[in-house]
């Protein structure tokens, strides 16, 4: 039996004393060791996370404001572990959704909330622990079973400065200016720009002596438009931009909206490819987006996605020459900004550079304090999840390179070679994709090299074994930016409520040529054209 480890680092005291929130968290956490149900042990670990969120959500349609709201929230999430480092159960408060708690810095109000939520978290952990114990009595032991949790020495790292404020009027102007662009396009039936801007201050204290706080900010701009194709199909097209608060100006949003409008207009008359099986070349940012679904989920240790990669440690998972590292310490790569940079992770561990793939072979995985069979210690990649979810390992800045990278021209040549080898008429280049499944801008390349914009279906096979279909990589790395929740890429559509829990990450990758992918479109008739014409749409004011 491991002795209870409740040694709040003394070093934390002078800093936390200044902040009523940290003080309330620390004081109530200190009481956690007294939580005890008659037939269950007291917790061996407890942590409390408090996330302060300021959010502005603005939406505009064709130049007119549809929605503009601001929110100030505080999300409180205590976590309690009952058992020991080998076998334990994790408990979170039993609430249907995060409870509404006071966002103002009031010591007493926060302690009261923490008292009730931690009580509930402990009871759930104790219940889980009893179930675990019963379960283990009924089943034979797995000799390889990984431990539940790794020991850790407390980290004190408190963010300085103040949270930047959100300028709602500026975001309203961005949304209105951006969406007004769609008025100029005859065939566009709806065009919206939605801006989500948030600042967060995350604080975490643990019974290991951690006292950590960190600030983050995010602006996400979603541009969406709808039009009816000449054959009647309802087409949606979108773009997403994200970065820091002051990163976008009107001109950039207008340009992105115009690009969406132009691409959508072109798609209206683009031919349809119902079913496709054959080579696909992912160009530029699209390569990183494809990897975010096909590769990234498998790079974390633990059983969350099955032992697919873990069991292939030391084996070839990608073509020879490919190397992949995740480097949280870099903030720039080849002149391109990286957004996943961090010094310590969300469990207070130092964030380390991790070699994942070397010459095509899997040599490492990203890890949090939750060990797996092959990865026993954290390498500082824990990323906080939604309330009620323990932190999970995830990427920060993923850098993919190939020592055998081809030039763009050589990649295209290789694509056509594959086409000819199959006896097919054409291959596909994907220039933009919403996650790995939905290519949004695709071009077909005929045997004669002629290129034409086409409408394609959904990619069917996005699995780790598809990675073995990679035939070649390019030379020029392009950075794409992503949002992760609990270490998982969130794909294209992240609801505004989840945005405060999303961590940014970058993938730097060259173009990728995949030997065979399958794409299918849903069958069914198209709607008729509108029964009467769209009202006139004069240019804005």
């Amino acid at each position, binding site marked *: 039996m491991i002795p209870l480890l409740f040694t709040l680092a003394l070093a934390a005291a002078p800093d936390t004393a200044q902040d009523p929130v940290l003080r309330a968290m620390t004081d109530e956490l200190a009481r956690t060791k007294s939580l005890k149900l008659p037939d269950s042990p007291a917790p061996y670990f407890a942590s409390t996370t408090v996330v302060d969120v300021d959010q502005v959500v603005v939406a505009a349609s064709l130049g007119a404001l*549809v929605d503009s709201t601001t929110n100030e929230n505080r999300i409180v999430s205590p976590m309690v572990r009952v058992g020991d480092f080998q076998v334990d159960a994790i408990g979170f408060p039993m609430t249907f959704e995060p409870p509404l708690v006071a*966002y103002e810095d*009031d010591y007493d109000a926060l*302690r*009261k909330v923490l008292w009730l939520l931690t009580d509930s978290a402990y009871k759930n952990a104790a219940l889980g622990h009893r179930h675990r114990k019963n379960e283990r009595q009924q089943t034979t032991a797995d000799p390889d079973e990984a431990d539940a949790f790794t020991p850790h020495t407390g980290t004190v790292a408190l963010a300085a400065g103040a949270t930047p404020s959100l300028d709602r009027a500026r975001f309203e102007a961005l949304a209105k200016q951006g969406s007004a662009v769609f008025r100029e396009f005859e065939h566009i039936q709806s065009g919206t720009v939605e801006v989500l801007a948030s600042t967060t201050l995350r604080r975490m204290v643990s019974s290991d002596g951690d006292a950590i706080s960190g600030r983050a900010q995010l602006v996400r701009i979603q541009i969406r438009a709808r039009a009816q194709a000449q054959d009647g199909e309802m087409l949606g097209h979108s773009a997403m931009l994200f970065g820091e608060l002051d990163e976008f100006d009107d001109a950039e949003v207008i340009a992105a909206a115009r690009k969406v409008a132009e691409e959508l207009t072109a798609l209206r008359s683009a031919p349809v490819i119902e079913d496709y099986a054959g080579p696909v070349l992912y160009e530029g940012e699209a390569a990183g987006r494809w990897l975010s679904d096909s590769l990234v989920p498998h790079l974390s240790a633990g059983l969350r996605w099955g032992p697919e990669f873990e069991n292939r440690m030391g084996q070839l998972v990608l073509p020879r020459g490919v190397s992949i590292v995740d480097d949280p310490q870099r903030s720039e790569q080849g002149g391109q900004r990286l957004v996943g940079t961090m010094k310590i992770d969300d469990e207070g561990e130092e964030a380390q550079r991790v070699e994942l793939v070397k010459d095509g072979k899997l040599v490492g995985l990203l890890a949090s304090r939750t060990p797996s069979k092959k990865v026993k210690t954290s390498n500082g990649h824990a990323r906080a999840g939604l309330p009620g979810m323990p932190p999970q390992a995830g990427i920060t800045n993923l850098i993919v390179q190939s020592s055998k990278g081809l030039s763009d021209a050589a990649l295209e040549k290789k694509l056509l070679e594959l086409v000819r080898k199959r006896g097919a008429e054409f291959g596909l280049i994907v220039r933009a994709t919403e996650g790995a499944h939905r290519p949004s801008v695709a071009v077909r390349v005929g045997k004669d090299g002629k290129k034409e914009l086409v409408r394609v279906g959904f990619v069917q096979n996005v699995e780790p074994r598809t990675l073995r279909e990679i035939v070649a990589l390019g030379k020029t790395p392009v950075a794409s930016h992503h949002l992760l929740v609990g270490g998982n890429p969130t794909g294209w559509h992240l609801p505004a409520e989840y945005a405060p829990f999303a961590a940014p990450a970058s993938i730097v990758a060259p173009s990728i040529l995949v030997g065979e992918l399958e794409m299918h479109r849903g069958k069914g008739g198209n709607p*008729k054209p509108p029964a009467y014409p*769209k009202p006139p749409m004069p240019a804005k004011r």
Partner: protein
Amino acid sequence: MRSWSVLAILAAIACHPASSKPTTAPAKSQEIAAAPKVALERGAPAAQGEPAPMLVVMKEELARAKAALGKGDEPPPYFMSYRVTELDSVEIAASYGALELSTSDRARVLDVEVRVGDHQFDNHHWRHRAMPGWGVGSRTAGLSGHRIPVEDEPAALAIELWSATDATYRGAVAELAAAKTQQQLSAKAKDDSPDFSKEQAVRAIEPRVTLEIDRAAWEPKVRAWSAAFRKHPELQQTEVRLVAQATNRYFASTEGTELQGGRTHVRLMISATAKAEDGMDLAHAETIDVPVAGELPGDAEVIARIDALAKVLGQLREAPVAEPFSGPALLEGRAAAVYFHEVFGHRVEGHRQEDAHEGQTFADKVGTAVMPSFLHVYDDPTIARIDGTFLNGHYRHDDEGVPAMRTELVKDGEFVGFLMSRTPTKGFAQSNGHGRGQPGFGLVARQGNLVVAPEVGMPEKALTDKLRELVVEQGKPYGLRFVEISGGVTNTSRYMAQAFQVAPIIVFRVYPDGREELVRGVTLEGTPLSSLSKIVAASDRYGVFNGYCGAESGIVPVSAASPSLVLSQIEVARAPAAQDRPPLLPPPTVTETSTKGGGR
């Protein structure tokens, strides 16, 4: 992020009561006075205003759609309407002296109605009938709300109207074709009422209402009020919440109806929860409803109410758990109003009589006695205040553009009519202005201001005596006095409605010697409707319930008013016991007695 509970909606609509047997009216003893005096204040029509840009765009687009649709081989719409609901709101919530929430919001929601076919048989045919082979009619097929720009930018609004109309029209044409096919499979229904009533066109252009509330000025007040709960650390969750809203509605139909107007509502909610030693969860809430913030009570009164609420919860924690009981009961005014809203009001919504899935409690009851003959019940949305109290269910035109009418439901104990939307039912061909719904929902008949009006009423004191007499007469150990039937501590939505559950909160045992004892964990049981026939006496003072009611057309503001009532028999059961233990640790000690607030 928050949403109202589906359970609450079920509680409001999913009851299946048995039939009721009326008893005779009480003998007029000397303590019975005349009919309770009541002052009804009706909402006066506001001055004619100018059509707002929103309404102008709606009329233009409606004309364009009417001229264009159904020119080819597709059926033309015989009716189209646009309803735009514009909601401005401010919501401030605080707990324990610190703000939890302070937001302002502005939203416009468009609802488009397109009917193809004719009044007798149209695309809505199966929406309120049990579909052969399906069992349940599909009212939510009408779900059609669109968020549209809040700015008066004519072109951006017009395109939203156009695109929603086109989609709704396409849906209506397909729905009519499907309805006709379905009709061939269906046995002849006992009610062949038309699908849509014919009504007079109305024009009422009132000035828009505006939300006049200064958030910065109200934040410190709400914060300070919520700090009053610091004196009561034994309570668990505590909250003070202020919700102020101005709702403007624009309506235009191809029949020529044009409406513009709005209402304001300010609600202060005080709520708290506690846990008894045996694990039972206790919740209590108090709401204060007024039309404008200026009518809210002052600091002293709000704090007194918080203290009273905390005191009741403290007493409830210590109170014994109710035993299953059958015997006489007194429902105080507000509790009686809630009771009527739930057990009677929902069952007289006209569309329920046609849907085979519904209880159809009153379908064949027209002209028969359902209550003692000294009781009248009506619903009158045109009343703005009753005895000076604001009524949340007041409106002058319903969401189908029909003028609200006083509707007699029970006269001399006999059931005489239903609340009607423009969906006719057997014997009731016209709407009486009760077609209502939340933006984005299909419309059905709903309550507005439900009023229980006895012919005779006695002073409250005499009513308690009456209860004790019945206890003795029936040889029971005690009777029950219901002070508060309530719920909805946790149910708030983006649209700030508070859903409602039938849950008695404050109930006393009344012993023959006049002694009273608070009990907890009471649930109403048995066949509530039959208890309506067991009403034996009423008081001479009205109590008012203001709330938001959830049913299939969403959440709508409602009121109910009733004098206190004595029932010769009511059945209660013990509430299901909660199993979870109270918190293992004592509450943290309050260290700072005052709050500065404001900071993060």
